[in-house]
């Protein structure tokens, strides 16, 4: 490859050229891409990139590139700086230059090849170990189910969260004993909306506090952890109460996390109402989203917990059904309290 003829703007080829491109982009200098010459003999490849460097940029380039073994001391009219590394064949300088100096030699040195292969095998082993450890705590497949959403589902679900009174069929449909993914069934819980709403809520809280001159970066972290902790507390309380009333349902912890996380959408709307329309707007939005959330949660949980609607058709004594009703109503009633608690300090 002829580097001198490649000029200043050329396509990027090879890994070595990425570093000078990045450096130039970082330094804000003229966009210059260097094409490495893989075919050139090892030692001589060092000096050639220096030729292609632009005027105002030659200093950094030649300092960066000039270090290397066997640099030819031939004088070059385009080189602004003297290449002083001829007498320092082992000068390592910055780690960056050391790395990319070694990179080109890697391809030719079989020992280094072995080292690279060994290193990559160790890395993959480490990755397997990490996967196994994570799999001990939670099933990644189960988690993937909750994030299998698409845009149509998200829009319909958001509309459902804010106006659930018109929805008729609340059952989560199954296909051969596994619940359908959120893409196919609007009643299925998902974790995408809660997590996105959580992040949006944090940002909105930052904006609200900033508008009241009460903002500082620590407040953001405190707000985030407070909101998260309240949801965790609610999920734990729900798990405990479901255990106590001995309900037989397939509600896992992630399902409950999803249902509890839907309140973030209500919180966002309440804070928005408070920001746009003042205190009255806040209370109106709070009332509306609380009612919608309570209705949504009551219908969803009742559908999931009520034994007589389970497809197996197993009969169940009346007493446990009463406990389940209490749990459902209690969970629904807690929602507006938590929403109010987490948002009222933002819209004073």
């Amino acid at each position, binding site marked *: 490859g002829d580097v001198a003829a490649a000029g200043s703007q050329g396509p990027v080829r090879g890994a070595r050229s990425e570093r000078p491109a990045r450096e130039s982009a970082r330094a804000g200098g003229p966009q210059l891409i260097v094409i490495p010459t893989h075919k050139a003999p090892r030692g001589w490849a060092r000096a050639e990139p220096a030729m292609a460097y632009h005027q105002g940029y030659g200093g950094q380039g030649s300092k960066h590139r000039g270090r290397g073994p066997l640099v030819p001391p031939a004088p070059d009219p385009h080189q602004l700086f003297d290449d002083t590394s001829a007498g320092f064949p082992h000068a390592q300088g910055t780690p960056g230059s050391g790395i990319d100096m070694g990179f080109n030699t890697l391809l030719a040195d079989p020992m280094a090849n072995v080292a690279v292969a060994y290193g990559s095998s160790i890395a993959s082993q480490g990755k397997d170990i990490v996967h196994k450890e994570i799999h001990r705590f939670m099933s990644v497949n189960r988690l993937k189910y909750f994030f299998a959403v698409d845009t149509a589902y998200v829009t319909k679900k958001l509309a459902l969260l804010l106006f659930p009174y018109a929805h008729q069929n609340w059952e989560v449909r199954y296909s051969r004993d596994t619940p359908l993914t959120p893409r196919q069934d609007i009643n299925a819980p998902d974790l995408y909306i809660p997590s996105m709403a959580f992040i949006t809520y944090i940002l909105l809280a930052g904006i609200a506090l900033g508008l009241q001159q009460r903002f500082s970066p620590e407040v953001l972290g405190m707000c985030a952890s407070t909101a998260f*902790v309240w949801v965790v*507390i609610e999920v734990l309380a729900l798990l405990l109460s479901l255990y106590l009333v001995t309900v037989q349902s397939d509600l896992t912890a992630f399902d409950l996390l999803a249902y509890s996380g839907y309140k973030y959408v209500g919180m966002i709307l309440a804070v928005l109402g408070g920001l746009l329309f003042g205190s009255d707007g806040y209370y109106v939005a709070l009332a509306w989203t609380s009612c919608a959330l309570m209705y949504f949660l009551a219908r969803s949980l009742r559908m999931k917990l009520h034994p007589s609607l389970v497809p197996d058709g197993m009969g169940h*004594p009346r*007493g446990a059904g009463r406990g389940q009703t209490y749990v459902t109503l209690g969970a629904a009633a807690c929602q507006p309290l938590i929403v109010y608690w987490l948002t009222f300090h933002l819209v004073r």
Partner: protein
Amino acid sequence: MAFTLYALLQAALLFVNAIAVLHEERFLRNVGWGTEQGIGGFGEEPGIKAQLMNLIRSVRTVMRGKMKSTV
């Protein structure tokens, strides 16, 4: 109320510890929450009190770990 995750951890730990120190013989039997007389019926529906007693007993067993205690 501003909660941090660490506060949650502390609260959970103290709560579980409180459950773990409820002594079976000295206290729970006097109140009527001993597990020997509670798990009588093997009917379909244990009831909330029996579930709670079971929960207390299992928390105690787990938290006491490798000690050879029968309670």
